């Protein structure tokens, strides 16, 4: 139940030094960076959605001529690339940024300037890879860019160049952020917050950062090979020189499979925050949820070739990967049961966030079931490259990741912006979204099994696919409507929504113990954590009586921390008044990021045989990069204190 007394939006956020474009360009505050990620990724989500709408408009009827085959290739490539790299991952990053320090009782991430750098690289990289579609030179080799199709021999234009370079740029952003969050979660937890007391979102995010660290270097190398082939004439994917057509596939999917767990685990984490809060019960089986998350991450590295069952790897490889794929369904299924048992016997409060969270549980399960059917190589031989697969991954990515992220947005909007989103509009959004999503993707199971291939720009009538496609397209247009409701709700609530209390959901974790939105320093006093649900210990101790608690007994090291027992903080003094040193805003990370983009842009000109331009840009970019990097490293993070 939301608390009755509404508190005014934090005054500090309105003061001169914290407003204006420059303050946003130079911010190193994780909360602001999180908000930047949120806006940018929502924009790309809408853009990728529009690409999908055009696809569905084209496929609504057989033999349609709405778009050309070439443009269609660009559309589905960019839809996939946008949704994976520019929408879902950064939406998760918005939450990593905003939420992780708050959940662990820290004042910021370990490396605030590196954090800003990650965002700017993402923004510039996203623009780099998106703008080409306006000139009809968007990447067109699928989001997975199989070589040798994407080699210079078969894809002469600039399209794939943008893809190869753009993804490498984006990879830098993700890797930098991963090092940052790994360090933050290991090293900046408040005293008493041992690993098994961390909120589940932070735990899942922790696993995700390791997945990024381990998977992204592999795609980097795959891309480097493709880039070198395209720009420097190497032979990695050159069949004539003896190159193996499977090299790209293996390298890509060694990255690609962990990538899908990168896409889903944060949403799982968000759901694991929303469900207990709105069931007024602790998460069922917390340790099991932790271990299953770790196991999913680890096993995720052992299943990649299930994307390659049709290439002829041989029975042993097929069997091994089929088995590991079946195996990974177990820890995933365990989570579903734990969420259900969390709600069982609880006092359910159906906020919009809760609806989306329950939606994930239902829809991800459906996606998981089709996923299990893919695990069998013989069955997959029929399913692969058909719409049956499209159905599967949209259920897990839309019904899973996106629903979880919506749950997170509705749940954390009050904390981020100090205002409540409109619940009624949220309900409309949910139901329209739920119906539309199923209408769009459920028929694809059927058209897929009836043989409709993926990535075709049109199809002939009379194959049994027409009705299914029409239904999917109607569903897609409904999704436009439901998403519009969300966008409207989001922006209207931001400016006009009712002022949010500090803990509108009566939740249990540390981020709810500080004002909405939080002051720049997060916690006036670092909290001393005694259990997994610190706020419920204060307000609803009967709920957490079964959970392990510390009874005093702080270590010497923890006592050094100058922390206070967990308490609700409502006062809104500035960092100066409290004597808390804040990191200095700086434009340097932005310029280092810009330097990198300039360098990569220079590479494009090698393709166009304009070596002068190429070397100039590379030189300018490198100078920016090195110059601002040195300036960054040699300047203090905080003011002298």
């Amino acid at each position: 139940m939301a608390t009755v007394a509404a508190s005014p939006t934090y005054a500090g956020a309105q003061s001169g030094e914290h407003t204006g474009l420059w303050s946003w360009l130079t911010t190193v505050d994780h909360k602001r960076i999180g908000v930047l990620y949120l806006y940018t990724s929502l924009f790309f989500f809408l853009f990728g959605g529009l690409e999908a709408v055009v696809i569905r408009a084209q496929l609504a009827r057989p033999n349609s001529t709405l778009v050309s085959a070439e443009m269609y290739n660009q559309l589905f490539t960019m839809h996939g690339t946008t949704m994976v790299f520019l929408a879902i991952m950064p939406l998760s990053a918005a939450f990593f940024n905003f939420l992780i320090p708050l959940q662990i009782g820290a004042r910021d991430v370990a490396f605030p300037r590196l954090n800003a750098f990650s965002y700017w690289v993402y923004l510039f990289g996203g623009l780099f890879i998106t703008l080409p579609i306006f000139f009809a030179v968007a990447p067109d080799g699928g989001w997975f860019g199989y070589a040798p199709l994407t080699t210079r021999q078969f894809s002469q234009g600039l399209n794939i160049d943008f893809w190869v370079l753009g993804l490498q740029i984006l990879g830098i952003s993700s890797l930098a952020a991963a090092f940052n969050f790994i360090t933050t979660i290991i090293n900046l937890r408040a005293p008493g917050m041992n690993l098994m007391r961390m909120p589940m979102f932070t735990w899942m995010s922790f696993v995700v950062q390791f997945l990024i660290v381990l998977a992204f270097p592999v795609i980097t190398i795959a891309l480097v090979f493709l880039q070198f082939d395209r720009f420097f004439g190497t032979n990695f994917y050159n069949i004539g020189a003896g190159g193996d057509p499977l090299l790209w596939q293996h390298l890509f999917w060694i990255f690609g499979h962990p990538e899908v767990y990168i896409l889903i685990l944060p949403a799982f984490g968000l759901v694991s925050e929303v469900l207990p809060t709105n069931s007024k019960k602790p998460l069922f089986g917390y340790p099991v949820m932790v271990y299953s998350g770790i196991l999913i991450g680890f096993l995720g590295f052992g299943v990649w070739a299930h994307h390659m069952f049709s290439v002829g790897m041989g029975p042993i490889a097929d069997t091994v990967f089929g088995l590991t794929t079946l195996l990974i369904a177990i820890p995933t299924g365990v989570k579903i049961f734990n969420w259900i048992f969390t709600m069982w016997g609880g006092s359910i409060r159906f906020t919009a966030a809760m609806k989306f969270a329950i939606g994930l549980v239902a829809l991800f399960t459906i996606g998981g079931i089709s996923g299990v059917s893919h695990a069998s190589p013989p069955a997959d031989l029929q399913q692969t490259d058909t719409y049956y697969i499209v159905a599967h991954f949209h259920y897990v990515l839309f019904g899973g990741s996106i629903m979880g992220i919506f749950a997170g947005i509705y749940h954390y909007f009050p904390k981020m912006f100090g205002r409540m989103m409109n619940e009624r509009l949220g309900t409309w959004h949910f139901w329209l979204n739920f119906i539309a999503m199923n209408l769009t993707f459920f028929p694809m199971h059927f058209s897929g099994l009836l043989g409709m291939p993926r990535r075709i720009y049109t199809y002939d009538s009379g194959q049994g696919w027409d009705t299914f496609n029409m239904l999917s397209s109607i569903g897609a247009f409904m999704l436009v409507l439901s998403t519009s409701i969300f966008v409207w709700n989001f922006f209207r609530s931001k400016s006009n929504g009712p002022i949010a209390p500090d803990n509108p959901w009566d939740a249990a974790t540390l981020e709810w113990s500080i004002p909405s939105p939080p002051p720049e320093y997060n916690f006036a006093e670092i909290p001393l954590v005694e259990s997994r649900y610190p706020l419920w210990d204060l307000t609803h101790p009967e709920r957490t009586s079964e959970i392990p608690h510390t009874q005093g007994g702080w270590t010497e090291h923890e006592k050094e921390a100058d922390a206070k027992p967990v308490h609700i903080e409502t006062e809104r003094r500035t960092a100066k008044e409290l004597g808390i040193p804040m990191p200095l805003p700086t434009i340097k990370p932005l310029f280092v990021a810009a330097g990198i983009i300039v360098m990569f842009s220079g590479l494009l000109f090698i393709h166009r045989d304009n070596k002068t331009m190429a070397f100039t840009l590379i030189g300018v970019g490198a100078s920016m990069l090195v110059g601002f990097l040195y300036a960054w490293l040699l300047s203090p993070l905080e003011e002298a204190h």
Partner: protein
Amino acid sequence: MSASPALDHVHAGAHGHHYTTTGLDSRKIAIWAFIGSECMLFASLISTYLIYKGRSVVGPFPHESCAPPACATALKPILNIPVTSASTFVLLMSSLAMVLALAAVENRNLPKLTTGDRILGSSKLWLWMTCILGATFLAFQSFEFTSFVHEGLSIRTNLFGSSFFTLTGFHGAHVTAGVIWLGTLLAIDYKRGLGPADAINVDIAALYWHFVDVVWIAIFTLIYLIK
């Protein structure tokens, strides 16, 4: 405020707001995470080299001679083990210089009683040695690359050339970045001296440097010594 404020903002100990959960420096945790990612980076490069081993359609080849028609003229095996053994030794010694440099920085303020102590205790000397040995390794690499190109092996020639030059090129780029990093530390040492407060920064550079050495150990064995 210390003279290198950017270099020491996170400390365990008495300052409450610089408390860390583990008592360890955040930068050290970050560099180990980074090294983890580098393991995967080089594993991918090395895997590709090994995948393509023996599959080049035309020569030159690493360990085999090459006769027409696989090459225009008869060629010897192109890898030069004696030269590369020397460069391997140089890189290994650079790691020794690096640990001595770190020790010298940590012990800067300890009394140095003998000449031996003074030599061992000179951080400038050992940072110079590391940089010089690193640069020597790079010189060996350049020599190797240019002689290969003269003998008809470029990055475009065949699978071996592509995978070899990319792998060793990436390694060499990492060494170069390391030399620049160490050179910067050396410059700071000249400017204001490196003392125990800077040990963490030298430590991080050292970890990076040793890792680059360790990758070379793997490369030397897997690419050069195994036929």
